[in-house]
């Protein structure tokens, strides 16, 4: 009697299991996430001094500019991630056509900046019209969002300069690798 009951229960359970049969299908699409390098720079608050004492030619004309930058350097990036400056002209342009302008190399620059992986060129370097000078270097893996660096400029005043206003265009470049 009990054996029969167990058998019937077995059949009922088996039947219920069959009714719960499930069909399954799966798909595994790939997700790709690209995180780009970032390199952006803009300049603000560019001021250059005015020779207020023309008789004292040993005085230097100094000025500063603020570099606003963001950068994301790959962890396996090359050590060329940096901000550079270069004169965009071979000479300064005088306001008066016959004025003698200071040479590009008479302009000097240095930089101040801070942050992990951020190294400014703090010593004075001569500007070049043919070679980009390094202002700030970034280590591999450096990630900086909306930070600032300060560029300092100076020109050694000289008795050879004519009294005039001189313009020298500069090009700032940032590279993330």
């Amino acid at each position, binding site marked *: 009697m009990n054996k029969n009951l167990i*058998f019937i229960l077995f059949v009922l359970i088996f039947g219920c299991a069959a009714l719960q049969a499930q069909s399954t299908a799966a798909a595994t699409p790939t997700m790709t*996430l690209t*995180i780009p390098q970032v390199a952006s720079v803009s300049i603000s608050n560019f001021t250059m001094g005015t020779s207020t004492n023309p008789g004292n030619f040993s005085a230097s004309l100094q000025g500063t500019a603020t570099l606003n930058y963001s950068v994301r350097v790959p962890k*396996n990036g090359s050590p060329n991630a940096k901000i550079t400056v270069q004169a965009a002209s071979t000479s300064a342009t005088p306001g008066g056509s016959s004025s003698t302008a200071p040479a590009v190399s008479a302009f000097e620059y240095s930089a101040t900046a801070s942050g992990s992986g951020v190294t400014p060129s703090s010593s004075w370097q001569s500007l070049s019209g043919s070679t980009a000078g390094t202002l700030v270097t970034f280590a591999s893996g450096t990630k900086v969002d*909306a930070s600032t660096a300060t560029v300092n400029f100076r020109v050694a005043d000289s008795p050879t300069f004519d009294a005039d206003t001189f313009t020298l265009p500069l090009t700032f470049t940032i590279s993330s690798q």
Partner: protein
Amino acid sequence: MKLCRLIATAILIVGAPLAVKAAATVSLSTSGGVTFSAGNPSLQPVTPASTSLVATITINGAKSTDTWGLKIRGLNSNFTGSSGLPIPSSNVHWSASASVIDGKGTVTVASGQNLSTTDITVASGLEGNKSPFTVQVIFTFTITNSWTYDADTYLQNLVLTATAN
């Protein structure tokens, strides 16, 4: 009791195969992969996927009283790249919409949420009494962008599982 045992045996032999025959079969296809092209996080804090992912579920042998479902999870807990630190898959958010393409079944879509490695039901419903029953689920994905991410290309797999009961 012998008669009872005989009837039960008959149910086992005849009934069980009938139950298996009645079970629906489900197939699942997807439109391709999901691509996120992140930008500058300061300008784009949330990055949408460049395309939607379309999952098509087809059920043959649909029955009006039977149910179907589609689940989603991440295969791993992180996106992995070649040099960058892993990025948590939970930064991905999905949402879905669905429509019945063929058949007389129903579909209900769950609210979107962040991706996890646990199966989450995206859509479900009744199969209906017409075969095939085909339903299309369209996923929209976004990922939270961050300056903490390293520049790199990262991969991860989704796991979509469709079931028909």
